[in-house]
């Protein structure tokens, strides 16, 4: 609150031109002028973020299991994973549009590509960091590989999985906006692009602020899910508030 007040005061006192940094009041005025319109763009972006995030989770889980299952498989998959991260997603996005068409699909794919990597790495880290004691306990209980994975490794990895999910949800917002810059007719990324093109800087700032709030909210939802459904998880990377 104080921050916003200071921002407003500085803008007014020094007469900062609105195309450099608009005052919060001006941003609010422009953004709330068309509430239905902005809400629509927010929903569109939110959908891309969530879809990309879900796809990331659904693909990262089995991928991490594969990565940790054998050295041979890891050796085959790992370079490919690194390759997907080496490709600049901003450059890949227009190519994906040509390949996949101008639908939601390329946006979800870009979001996934931006978000999934840290998730795979943290899940894999969780799966291999199970203490040897617990693995031995599983063997003493005659566990096969599948029950060992399901009853020991995966539960043990839950705090790690959530650590990855927190990184992934933040990156998913980035990915969705990148995708919208390249190919979209709606969404907050699209809104920023079109409004700056028409010099409506206040609206672009408004969209930026909504994106930040969306990022924070989604992150907090992931944190809340961990707290509610996995209360025993130490929440290794979230400070207790």
């Amino acid at each position, binding site marked *: 609150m104080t921050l916003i007040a200071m921002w407003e005061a500085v803008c007014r006192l020094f007469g900062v031109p609105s195309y450099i940094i608009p005052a919060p009041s001006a941003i609010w005025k422009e953004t709330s002028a068309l509430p239905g319109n902005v809400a629509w763009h927010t929903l569109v972006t939110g959908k891309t973020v969530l879809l990309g995030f879900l796809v990331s989770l659904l693909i990262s889980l089995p991928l991490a299991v594969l990565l940790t299952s054998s050295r041979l498989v890891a050796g085959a998959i790992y370079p490919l994973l690194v390759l997907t991260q080496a490709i600049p997603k901003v450059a890949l996005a227009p190519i994906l549009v040509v390949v996949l068409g101008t639908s939601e699909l390329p946006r979800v794919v870009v979001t996934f590509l931006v978000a999934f990597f840290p998730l795979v790495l943290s899940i894999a880290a969780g799966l291999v960091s199970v203490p040897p004691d617990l693995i031995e*306990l599983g063997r*003493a*209980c005659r*566990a096969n590989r599948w029950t060992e994975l399901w009853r020991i490794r995966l539960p043990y990895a839950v705090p790690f999985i959530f650590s990855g999910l927190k990184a992934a949800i933040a990156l998913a917002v980035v990915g969705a906006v990148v995708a919208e810059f390249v190919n979209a007719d709606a969404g907050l990324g699209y809104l920023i692009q079109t409004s700056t093109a028409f010099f409506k800087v206040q609206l672009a700032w408004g969209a930026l602020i909504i994106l930040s709030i969306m990022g924070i909210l989604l992150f907090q939802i992931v944190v809340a899910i961990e707290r509610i459904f996995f209360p025993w998880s130490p929440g290794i990377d979230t400070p207790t508030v």
Partner: protein
Amino acid sequence: MRNGTTHRPLTHLSSRSEFNGVIEIENLSKHFVSRDRDRVEALTDVSISIRRNEFVCLVGPSGCGKSTLLRLVGGLLPASQGRVMIDGTLVAEPRAETGIVFQSPTLLPWASVLDNVLFPLKMMKRVTAESPGRAKSLLKLVGLEGFEGKYPRELSGGMQMRTGICRALMHDPDILLMDEPFGSLDALTREELTLQLMRIWREQPKTVLFVTHSIPESVMLADRVVVLSARPGRIVEIVPVDVPRPRKFGMEALDDFQRAARRIRQLIFGVEGNTIH
């Protein structure tokens, strides 16, 4: 044992036949190959027969292969030479009727005390309608009544160990393997758990192989103490303990106790009268 007689024997919880739990260890050797291709001899030519419902302690300097021997009997490690037979069957993989208590409590942090105790049954798909009731009576036996719903991190080290012991007893094994289970506990908890273990063993007899590096603990618990030499571990001597049962603390002063403890100390340190243990 003050409260020993107030507990009803748990024989009604036992369903196994009368002739199980005989361990035959024949010329057992185990070596490991380390990363730099060095061959490390852990155990050399160990042979011993353990009777049904006998309590045997393994004592020796650290690194003498006590834990390795336990893991070989548990089927968690393959033998390099020789073999382990249980009731005439070769041990090639972990056996359902063997319970293992590890050095650390090794509890699942995401499961309640009750679910931890039920874990082996769940893994072996042997949970029945009576299982939770049996788990609760076991927890009661070790003084953990009312803690069924707690998570491991809410328990003290001693309570975690008790949970681990209940888990090993849950499927009523005829053989119990214990790897320095009380090693990390304070002296008082240790004495208490020793008494509880003796009571459980008396009420639900089973063959116990118990690794420790405490000489008094081994004499207090065991029918026979197997003394192993430093690496590579081999049996130096098997010391019989003639202290009458039921045992209790205070019996350390008995001649039989002293004689056995002195003999073990002598075998390990090679000097008589060494008081450090």
